C-alpha cells in the first residue's frame, strides 16, 4: 500500500526535466525495470490522482524518478526539496521482460530515456545492449553520461544535429536493428516514434513503454485503457506499462 519516502536529491536535467532521488530501502530490492510508482501530489486534495512516475534507476536504498514538467501536478512535484516526504504507492505495473544472451536495442526519445536507464543497467549483465538516445536538440538530451557509465554503446541523434547525427532517433535505431541478428527492441518516447519502429521492423519484437491517463494505478478503475489489436482494451497500469507493441493499436 502507500507509504512515505524521503526525497534525497533533486536536480534539473533540462529546463523541463527533473530528477528526484528518494530513499526507499523497503522497496528498492523489489522494484524491477518497467515498473512505476504512484506519487501523491499534495495534501490539499485539489489534485486527487497520483502521478505515475516510472523508475529511472535503483541504486542501493535509493530510487530515481525523472519526469517532465507538463501540468499542475508535475509543477507541484518539481518544487520538491531534499528532506521532503513523498507519499508513494508501488512498485506498480508489470516488469519489462528480461532477456539473456540477446542483442538488445534500447531507443529513447526525449524524457523517454529515463526508464530505459534502469532497464539497461539490468539487461547489460547478460545481453549486448545498444543504446540510442534522441531529442530535438542537444540541451534536451538526458542521461547520456549515465548510460555511458554503464559501458554500453551509446548513439545520439538530434533533430537539429546539435549532438550526434542529425535527424530522428529512429534512423540510427533502424540501422542498428537491421545489422543485428535476432535483436530485441525496447523503446520509450512519443507514440509516433513507437509507431514508426513497430511498423518498420520486420520480425523483430518491439516492447514499448506506453503512457495513458491513469486513475488508480492498480487495475481497479479501468481508466488507463489501451486498445488491443484483437479487440477490447488492456489496462496499462496492470498489463503494462511495458507492452509488446504488436498486441496494441497505437
Amino acid at each position, binding site marked *: 500500500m502507500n507509504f512515505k519516502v524521503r526525497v534525497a536529491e533533486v536536480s534539473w536535467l533540462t529546463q523541463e526535466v527533473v530528477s528526484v532521488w528518494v530513499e526507499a530501502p523497503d522497496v528498492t530490492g523489489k522494484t524491477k525495470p518497467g515498473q512505476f510508482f504512484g506519487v501523491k501530489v499534495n495534501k490539499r*486534495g485539489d489534485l486527487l490522482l497520483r502521478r505515475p512516475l516510472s523508475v529511472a534507476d535503483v541504486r542501493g536504498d535509493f530510487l530515481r524518478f525523472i519526469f517532465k514538467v507538463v501540468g499542475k501536478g508535475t509543477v507541484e512535484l518539481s518544487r520538491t526539496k531534499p528532506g521532503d516526504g513523498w507519499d508513494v504507492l508501488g512498485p506498480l505495473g508489470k516488469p519489462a521482460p528480461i532477456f539473456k544472451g540477446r542483442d538488445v536495442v534500447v531507443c529513447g526519445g526525449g524524457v523517454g530515456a529515463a526508464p530505459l536507464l534502469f532497464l539497461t543497467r539490468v539487461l547489460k549483465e547478460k545481453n549486448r545492449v545498444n543504446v540510442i538516445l534522441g531529442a530535438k536538440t542537444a540541451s534536451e538530451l538526458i542521461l547520456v553520461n549515465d548510460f555511458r557509465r554503464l559501458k554500453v554503446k551509446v548513439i545520439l541523434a538530434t533533430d537539429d544535429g546539435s549532438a550526434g547525427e542529425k535527424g530522428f532517433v529512429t534512423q540510427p535505431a533502424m540501422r542498428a536493428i537491421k545489422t543485428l541478428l535476432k535483436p530485441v527492441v525496447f523503446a520509450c518516447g512519443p507514440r509516433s516514434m513507437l509507431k514508426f519502429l513497430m511498423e518498420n521492423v520486420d520480425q523483430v519484437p518491439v516492447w514499448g513503454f506506453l503512457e*495513458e491517463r491513469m*486513475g*488508480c494505478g492498480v487495475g481497479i*478503475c479501468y481508466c*488507463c*485503457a*489501451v486498445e488491443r489489436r484483437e479487440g477490447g482494451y488492456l489496462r496499462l497500469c496492470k498489463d503494462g506499462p511495458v507492452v509488446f507493441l504488436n498486441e496494441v493499436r497505437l
Partner: protein
Amino acid sequence: MKGEVVVGGVRFANPVLAASGTFGYGVEFKGIANRLGGIVTKGVTLEERAGNPPPRIAEVPSGIVNSVGLENPGLIKFKRQILPKLKKIKTRILVNVAGFEVDEFIRLAEGLEEENIDGLELNLSCPNVSEGGAVFGQTPQKVEEITRAVRKRTKKLLVVKLTANFVDPRETAKAAEAAGADAVTVINTLYGLILDDNGRPFLGGRTGGISGPAIKPFALFCVDRVAAAVKIPVIGCGGIISGRDAFDFLCAGARLVQVGSANLTAPNGALRVLQELKIIISEKRIKGWESIVGTARRG
C-alpha cells in the same frame, strides 16, 4: 458501540462501502474488502462491453471526470470467472447491474438470483454510455418500471442507484420506493465535459461523469432531500474522501455511504474513511451509527 447497520434485512458490519467502478470486482484487494461494510462491484451488463476509447479519465480541481463506459465481461463470464473468487470475500457484496432495456435488467436479476451475493444495485444512472444509461434514471416512470420488474424476480437486497442529472432525485427515489426497492444510492456522477487545448472533447467517450470532493456539497444536498422524501434507507455517495465526509452524509440522512474516487488515490481509500469515521464517532461518544443518521434535520 454497536457497529452493525441493517438495510433491507441485510446486516453490514459498518456503514462504509466501496462504490461501483472504483474497486474493480472486489477480488483485487480482498484484505481491504473484508474490513469494509461491503463492496459494490463494477457494473455488469448482460453482454460483454469493451468500454469507451481512451482517454478515460481527466482531473479537475478537487475532482475526477471519468468515461470508462461500463467495460465488463458480461453476465456469463462474470458468473464463471469472477463470482467464484467473490465467494471468498467475507463482506457484503452488491453486484451493480446495468441494462439498456428493461428486459436486460430482468435477465441480469434472474441470472444472479441463485448466486451467493447479498444484493443488486440497479445502475439507472451511468452517464458514460450512449444508449440507455442515465436516461432511465431521469424518468420516475422508468425507474418504477425497472425496479418493479426486478423486484418480482429477486428476493435479494435491491438498491437503486439514482442520478441527479437533470432530475429531482426525490421523484425518482419515491418511484423506486413505490416499486419495492430496499434502498436508494444517491448520487451517481454528474455530467461533465472536458476540452483539450484545441477546444475539442478530451475524453474518448466525449463526455464523462464528475466525482470527488468537487460534487460533495451537491451530493449531500441530494441525500438530505431524498432522505426526507422516502422511508427506505438512503446510501450516500459523492465526494466522500474522509471520515468527516462520511459523518456528514450520515448526518444528512444516509444509513450507509459509498466511497468512490478516494479508492483511486489508494486502494485503501474507503478503509481510511472508515477508520477516520470511527475516530470521530468515538471522540463524540456516539453510541451506534444509527443515532446520527439524519441529525441534520432534527430540531
